[in-house]
């Protein structure tokens, strides 16, 4: 069991990294990876939302959809769960911690349409993961996403300083870097 969880964790960070292997959450990835602070904010929020959505949707899936034999509605139900959850969190943060809202809250609405979150939930359901497996997958997918964000942020900060050619500035060069990582991450495929 523990070995299984470890391999899910390694898989989520290295082998099936959301950004470099699975292509999930790319819009916020390229949007927020332009500097360290944005990446931190986005990364932290993604991990938080991913873990909570994983838990919530696992509960809904196991105790509502499967007994009712309504798994074909998963997509609809999950996205509503995520949207409602995020909206709630946004309201709570805004009310109780305006400073936190100011630094992290701006990322919240974006996260609803972040395919990484719906992606991890869909993967959990598709693989029929048990609760612990789903939780580990959710957590480490988020960590893998944040890792990729921070890597890209430091690289893009350096590239900004060095000055890349005019038509390469911003996202194009980031995609080239992502291609490099994507190739490098290929070596991890045999790990699990």
């Amino acid at each position, binding site marked *: 069991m523990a070995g299984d969880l470890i391999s899910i964790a390694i898989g989520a960070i290295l082998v099936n990294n959301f950004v470099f292997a699975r292509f999930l959450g790319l819009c916020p990835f390229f949007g927020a990876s332009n500097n360290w602070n944005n990446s931190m904010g986005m990364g932290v929020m993604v991990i938080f939302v991913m873990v909570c959505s994983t838990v919530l949707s696992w509960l809904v899936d196991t105790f509502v959809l499967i007994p009712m034999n309504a798994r074909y509605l998963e997509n609809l139900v999950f996205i509503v769960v995520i949207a409602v959850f995020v909206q709630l969190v946004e309201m709570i943060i805004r009310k109780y911690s305006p400073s936190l809202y100011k630094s992290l809250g701006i990322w919240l609405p974006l996260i609803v349409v972040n395919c990484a979150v719906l992606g991890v939930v869909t993967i959990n359901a598709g693989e029929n993961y048990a609760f612990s497996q789903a939780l580990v997958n959710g957590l480490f997918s988020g960590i893998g996403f944040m890792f990729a964000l921070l890597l890209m942020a430091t690289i893009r900060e350096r*590239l900004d300083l060095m000055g890349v050619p005019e038509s*390469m500035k911003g996202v194009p060069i980031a995609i080239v870097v992502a291609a490099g*990582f994507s*190739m*490098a991450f290929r070596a991890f495929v045999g*790990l699990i």
Partner: protein
Amino acid sequence: MEVSIGPHIRGDWDTKRIMLCVVLALIPSAVAGIYYFGYTALEIIVLSVLGAQITELIGLKVLGKPTEFDGSAMVTGLILALILPPSAPLWVPIVGAAFAMVFFKLLFGGLGKNIFNPAAGGRVFLLLSFAAVMASFPAPGADAVTAASPLASTGSYSYMDLFLGNVSGSIGETCKLAIIIGGVILIALGLIDYAVPLVYALTCMVIALVAGADSLYHLLSGGLLFAAFFMATDYVTTPITRRGRVIFAAGLGVLTMVTRLMVGTESISFMILFMNGLVPMIDRFTVPRSFGQPKKERRARKNEQ
């Protein structure tokens, strides 16, 4: 009278001289490769160097940058050739060098700006794209018997054969003696920090020892030593502080051995790309404490922007 800013004298080393010395240090490996694998090895080396050089020339023209020869493309082409299998068809070095130069260097704006080691990138591209031609390694000598890379067959070679390079493998990676000669040249000229190959090799050996594998065999097989001296020490794609470089070397060692032992493949080039990507982050966290700076201020970098 000329008014210019100081210092009014400068050191002797310039970029071109550094690059040409790296080429010099690579020559023993190239010679050993040609000795063991014959004329094809020479062809591959020449084509790879030419490919890199011509691609760079065209690329710099397109970018509108000065096309003065600085030797860096030559180094990339040479390193790429030395990590290719000697049986590779002749289009492989050309395609690989062109891709390496364009995708891993010129798109970033040329020398000094690239994130990934172009030679490692070129090899990774070739491995992923043309697995069949990249994975067969002929044994040294005239006969074209295809053998697996030495990594796959632990214990089938003597240490002496491994050391001298009388084994199958990539052109420049087999002869450890030549690699060490080149490495010593680089260290003696003060071009590379001896800590990098040392830490890298030691990390690999310790991990092999802990895992119960033959650590000397691991050290002497595959592309470990070549990467230690010539790829993990590439200026542009490794950290700028010594502490950073040691972290880089240790991380590379761990990843090399993890993939060797757990996946069973030689993926040093991949791991070099991966660690290259980590370099800006390592640099960010290894800003040295300036002389007389209190400890607390070390990470004084402001985070609000």
